[in-house]
């Protein structure tokens, strides 16, 4: 099991993209690609080949779950890809719904930029363990 290097982060809010870049690239040391929409993610996922995909749930146009479905359609996600949602609302029913879609892990917003990378690594270890 190797540590993840490439993280794809899909988030419509430019300020959050910026601080996530700080959290994941500068603090966390990941190779990061950010996308501002589900569409952009669909276009760039093949070339980037991420090990971890972070999807904001609430986005205009295609939301997080819809983006995930479309990514699967494209065969862009394999068994070894870790997919996580990021959301400000973590209700138990919602978690249940995400689980049915094959997403076990949700990162709740607001996240702490200084520990986000560690959190992802922990989940990654569990995912591969």
């Amino acid at each position, binding site marked *: 099991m190797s540590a993840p290097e490439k993280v794809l982060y899909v988030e419509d*809010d430019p*300020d*959050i993209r*910026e*601080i996530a870049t*700080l959290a994941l690239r*500068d*603090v*966390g*040391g990941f190779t990061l690609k950010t996308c501002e929409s589900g569409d952009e993610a669909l276009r760039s996922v093949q070339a980037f080949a991420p090990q971890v995909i972070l999807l904001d749930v*609430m986005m205009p146009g295609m939301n997080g779950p819809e983006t995930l479905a479309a990514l699967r359609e494209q065969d862009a996600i394999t068994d070894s890809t870790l997919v996580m949602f990021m*959301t*400000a*609302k973590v209700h138990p029913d919602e978690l249940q719904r995400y689980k049915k879609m094959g997403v076990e892990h949700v990162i709740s*917003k*607001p*996240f*702490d*930029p*200084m520990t986000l*990378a*560690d959190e992802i690594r922990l989940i990654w270890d569990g995912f591969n363990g």
Partner: protein
Amino acid sequence: MVDSTRSNVAGYRLATLKKAYAERLESEFRKLEALADRLDEPPSRNDTLHEMHRALHTIAGAAGTFGFHLLGQKARELEQLVAKDLTEPGEKTLIPVAWFTELKEALAAHNREQSTETVKASQQTIIDGSPCIWLVERDDILAGYAQSQLTSFGFQVFHLDAGDLKTTDHPAPDLLLIDHHAVQGDVTERQSFWQTLLEDVGCPIFFMGAEESFNARLQAFRAGGQGYFVKPLDMIKLASHISQIIRTDDHEPGRILIIEDDRELAMYFQSTLEQAGMQVAVLDQADQLFETVSEFSPELVLMDLRLPDVTGAELAGLLGQSERWAHLPVVYISAESNSRLRNQALLQGGDAFLEKPVDTGILVRLCLTRIRKLRELERTRNRDSLTGLLKHANIKEALQLQWKLAQRRPQTFGVVMLDIDHFKTVNDTYGHVVGDTVIAAAGTLLRQHFRITDKLGRYGGEEFTLVLPDCDADQAWQLVDRLRKDFADIKFVGNGEPFSCTLSAGVADNRQCPSDTAEALLEKADQALYRAKHAGRNRVVSASGLTGVRPG
């Protein structure tokens, strides 16, 4: 994983991003405000609510990441309210009118915390037996903030639920600080809730609330509050108010001068008032009036309207003509049934009439309330608003009084001149607001450190003067040196960076210049201060030269 250089750079970028986000919040607020205005237009109400929900959701999810935790939480609460309104359209009044103010407050509280005004003191400044405050506040985050700030000023703070006030085993409070909305219900319900709850509490009560209005103040007053503070709270002001009310509120017995030629009646009043905890002096010869008042310094005069050779009204008139005693409350005792004479007496000065036979219950209560009012008045007149200490003229007067007192009844007293080191640099580097914070903190710390009988004054700028009765230069040195250490432990924040300040002081006592004047004594303390500065600052120097020029 995170090496220090990387995290330093990250910290810097984080600060930049926070700043950018704070700017964005302003435009988000404008948007929310516009949406709130549109809420009353029925056809689009649902769309508006959806937009509001989205905007609040975004803030709830992002604010915390940028460090605006309180704001994020408030946005989350409101988001849930809006969501409820959307799913249960029948009930339209769910969104509190004050919601927008609450959001703004949350942001303001954050800015204040981040800004240069924050004072963080180390735990060391908490002295055992320091005043105890019970804090009742629904909002845990605000409570935590208030708790840490008040603790840094030397108070013990316990955070309680309104429901636990009667059952808690925390030490008895010196003051209650209560969120007026900590209980639900309408105005009358709240009022009676607090009244019943607080009936047994023997300490002052301050209420806090979001609303700045006459009605809010009136409600707090009716519920038994001695003060009402509008949120967002200015912690430095609040700490200063609290320490003033705890330190001065009737700890010192009221001083009452009785002028009465009927000795038996005078003795009867004297014992009644003394039993109620007051100090009493009796004067039976009117011509000794001015000597007696200047020695005894009464806070209320109780006198018979008819005295030999002079009337009470004339004495009140005489007192009214002297600047020092013009505000002294005067209560007449009289069997006078002639209303014209009584009115005349009131017009010449004097505040109230008690008819013989005097109801002693009324007499005691009247004295207590008048004295409390006088003390409040003197506090605002004589005290520097920033520090709550005596103003320049008043500390000099206190020194003169102490000097005269020691001439009559020999006793040793100490005088201290104290100055914050490099204060100009603080002002130049961090600005005057931070400078004021440093001065205010020094004032509050002084009040916490010294006795009620000590006279503490702001001599000017960053310079302080203390007059310490029954205290020689060596004892004064010890006390001031402890203060010096505690002051150096206070962490201030300016331009986002923590810094601390030191102080220098010179001490002297009246034995060192017994035949001189009060001014000469002050000058001695000032010279010692000069030596402390010259020897490298952050130290206390005694004018006697025996208690050393010790390094800090």
